């Protein structure tokens, strides 16, 4: 039993499954559990850019008899009703903690019911006990991929890529995807499927038609591997963050797609968006002593660290990751951070550890989720940069953290925020 006093209890794999499956447009979720779970899951879903689960999720509303007798009648009735009423391509049948405890065999029920319904049924029986939401996203994404991509050899379209990664809870996805799309269009590259948020099952089937999968978060690497195994399609992992990071990302994409590195375009982009802090701050506003702590998923944490150190010339005094990164076994993330001079690295810290590190390091700047930002009372500049941020909307697509425009946006933001807190300039 863990005790959470001030922060937020972590979202479990149950949420990862819901957030993934709710993003697939022709999928409906039928949950086996008490009805209140869906009421409040909808509320917590709504806290993410005010999205709605209306007609996307239903509960079979177990009652006392179902709990005592382990009855599956309401679940079967609910699945059939959703199938015949809404005709979705997929129905995700999701267990809650109650299901797991009463021992209802969701997998078996789905197997026996599948011949009676038109939709593909995909069971998720963990009940939220298997791990964090990252695991739920990865596992449900793999399950969908296995369901809709057939093994075989495909003839991919040149200069066409898919993007694997975005789910509804991912911080700033709308703006980041807009910037990635813009960067790719500069290279003449089109996007096939963006998986899973906002795609259809037909678009999932079309994934092998592209030449490359751009995996934008570490938890989707197993999905990229799964697709490679099924269709032979390669993937590339990473996010373009900062000037240095974006140039590297474009170079890798170009190389993998056999495109000439667009030197002239990059130079033009840097001249438009590559503001330097030296030019934005006054001489009497020293900033090289400023210390930053990052508490974000791996892609943001690494990319922002590189940007802060190499492009901004500030220091990163600690990095908190929500869990151990799932990057390739050939890349040791600790070494990658160490190469940047970052040695204080914490995975899945508890709230007490987070508070004690922040209090000890006394950073001026913190990139984190809303709960960490609230806990860090002494930090002057607080920048929302990770899920969950129920008090922060990111619906507008013009505030990217990635790409050249993301660099410009963040550089402008940090300049303005430092100006609003001039005490940070005191060394």
């Amino acid at each position, binding site marked *: 039993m863990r*005790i959470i006093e001030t922060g937020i209890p972590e979202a479990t794999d149950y949420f990862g499954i819901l957030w993934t499956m709710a993003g697939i447009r022709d999928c409906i979720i039928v949950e086996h559990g008490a009805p209140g779970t869906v009421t409040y899951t909808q509320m917590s879903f709504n806290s993410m850019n005010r999205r709605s689960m209306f007609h996307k999720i239903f509960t079979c509303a177990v009652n006392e008899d179902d709990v005592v007798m382990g009855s599956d009648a309401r679940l079967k009735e609910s699945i059939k009703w959703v199938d015949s009423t809404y005709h979705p391509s997929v129905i995700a049948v999701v267990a809650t903690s109650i299901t797991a*405890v009463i021992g209802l065999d969701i997998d078996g029920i789905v197997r026996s019911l599948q011949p009676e319904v038109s939709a593909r049924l995909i069971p998720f029986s963990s009940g939220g006990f298997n791990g964090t939401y990252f695991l739920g996203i990865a596992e449900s994404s793999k399950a969908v991929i296995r369901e809709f991509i057939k093994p075989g050899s495909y003839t991919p379209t040149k200069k066409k890529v898919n993007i694997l990664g975005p789910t509804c809870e991912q911080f700033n996805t709308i703006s980041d995807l807009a910037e990635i799309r813009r960067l790719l269009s500069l290279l003449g590259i089109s996007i096939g499927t963006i998986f899973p948020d906002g795609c259809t099952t037909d678009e999932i089937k079309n994934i092998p038609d592209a030449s490359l999968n751009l995996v934008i978060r570490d938890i989707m690497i197993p999905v990229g591997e799964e697709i490679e195994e099924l269709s032979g399609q390669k993937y590339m992992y990473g996010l373009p963050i900062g000037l240095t990071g974006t140039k590297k990302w474009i170079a890798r994409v170009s190389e993998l797609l056999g495109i000439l590195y667009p030197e002239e375009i990059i130079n033009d982009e840097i001249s438009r968006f590559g503001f330097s802090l030296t030019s934005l701050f006054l001489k009497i506003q020293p900033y090289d002593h400023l210390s930053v702590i990052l508490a974000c998923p791996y892609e943001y944490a690494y990319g922002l660290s590189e940007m802060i150190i190499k492009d901004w010339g500030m220091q990163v005094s600690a990095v908190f990751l929500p869990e151990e990164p799932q990057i390739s076994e050939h890349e040791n993330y600790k070494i990658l951070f160490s190469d940047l001079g970052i040695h204080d690295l914490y995975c899945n810290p508890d709230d007490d550890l987070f508070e004690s590190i922040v209090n000890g390091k006394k950073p001026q700047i913190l990139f984190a989720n809303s709960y960490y930002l609230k806990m860090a009372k002494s930090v002057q500049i607080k920048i929302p940069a990770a899920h969950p941020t129920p008090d922060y909307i990111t619906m507008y697509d013009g505030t990217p953290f990635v790409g050249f425009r993301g660099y410009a946006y963040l550089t402008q933001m940090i300049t303005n925020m430092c100006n609003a807190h001039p005490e940070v300039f005191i060394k």
Partner: protein
Amino acid sequence: MTATFSELQKFVTLDQLVSEKKTPDIVAPVFPGLGCGFFAVSFIAPLIEKSAAIMIAPAICAHNARVFMSRFEQSSFMLKNNLVFFLYEDDDIIHGAEETIKNAIVDFYHKQKPEVIFVVTSCLPEIVGEDIEAVVRQVRDVVKIPVLFIRTENFTNISSKQGMERALEALIELMDYPVQKIPHSVNIIGASAFRSFNTELFTVISKTGYSIHSVIPSHTDLNTLQKAPEASCNIILDRGALPLAEKMKEKYQMDYFLFDRPFSPESILHLYRNLGMFLSVDIESIITPEYNSLLQLTSVLKQGLAGKKAIISIGQGRTFDLAFLLHSFGIKIAAIAIDEIFEQDYADAKKFHSDGGKSDIIRNASCYPLEEYLVRIKPDYYITFSGYEENMCKENHIGYRNIHSIAFLNGFDFAIHILLEIFGDYVQTIPNFDISAMKMRVNA
């Protein structure tokens, strides 16, 4: 994905409701449901100052409850988070967690020193069979503050009402036998008592010469709750507070009056008259200006709304009385979605029915292909308490009216604000009718 109307889940007609007392079934599947007790407690407990609520739940419920609370922290409610989560995990299921919970509560008490602790269980520890009530008894022997136990197993009751009832009922354990009774004083009790100091009922009571002794559960701390039985009587704002009112009546001989929320001028006047009789004061002369304001508004609304159609899905106040009122404007009430139904609702439904009302009655908690239904009915007004349907209504050019923000009001003020919220567009077209003046007058 479009649902067909033929799949519309079970509904009954107003005729059947009135003549047979038949109510629509709750059928699976359900969306969005009526909440659950765990979350009701996570809203009520933070209202009590210097308290802490220890929520024993799996991570799913705990995460949702924390996000839920965050929304209220950011709202005009300005709730202060006092929730502490004991995450009930697979090891606890296998090995049991009573001892761990006991020690953790005691540790928490020594660390944070709250004045009151609520210990709240969700479905899972209840299914597993943890005897948390016994744990609480043991903890009480160790810590020197009141520790209240609230059980909220959602599988025995599909709504949040269970949690409201139990959370409020538990407060009686904090109350002392009164050393003295304060004449002409009342407690106002109910989850919707939040911001009661700014409501019509508060103003009216103050004008009668009665004082407000306490407002429960908001604006309270341990000291206020201990002294609550000193008041002469209780005024109850919502049915979730009735079990507490009954217990206070039994234990402290305190009579109570249910001040529910009707909409029509005559119903509200009748309610106030009854309140006047209950308090043995003349209220009618006090509320005449408010009554006249509502009459003025309804007379305006009767001029130009005939032939319009509405669906009512509010789950707040006396829904059938609202249907009756809107019907008196010439509006056809195509459907009414209900949460629970009480004797007063049957009486209101009968009045509406006798007035020529004809409606489908559906369940708020139940799932039905609402979009198909709305497209078929094409109501001019979809009056709701929730935000789920907003986009769908906009896409189908249906007048979406969400009354959530005014749900804490009461009396004529409640009815006037709701009517202005629903028909504000229309009222603005009436020459010489000053909406802002009416709102300001009511607010004053």
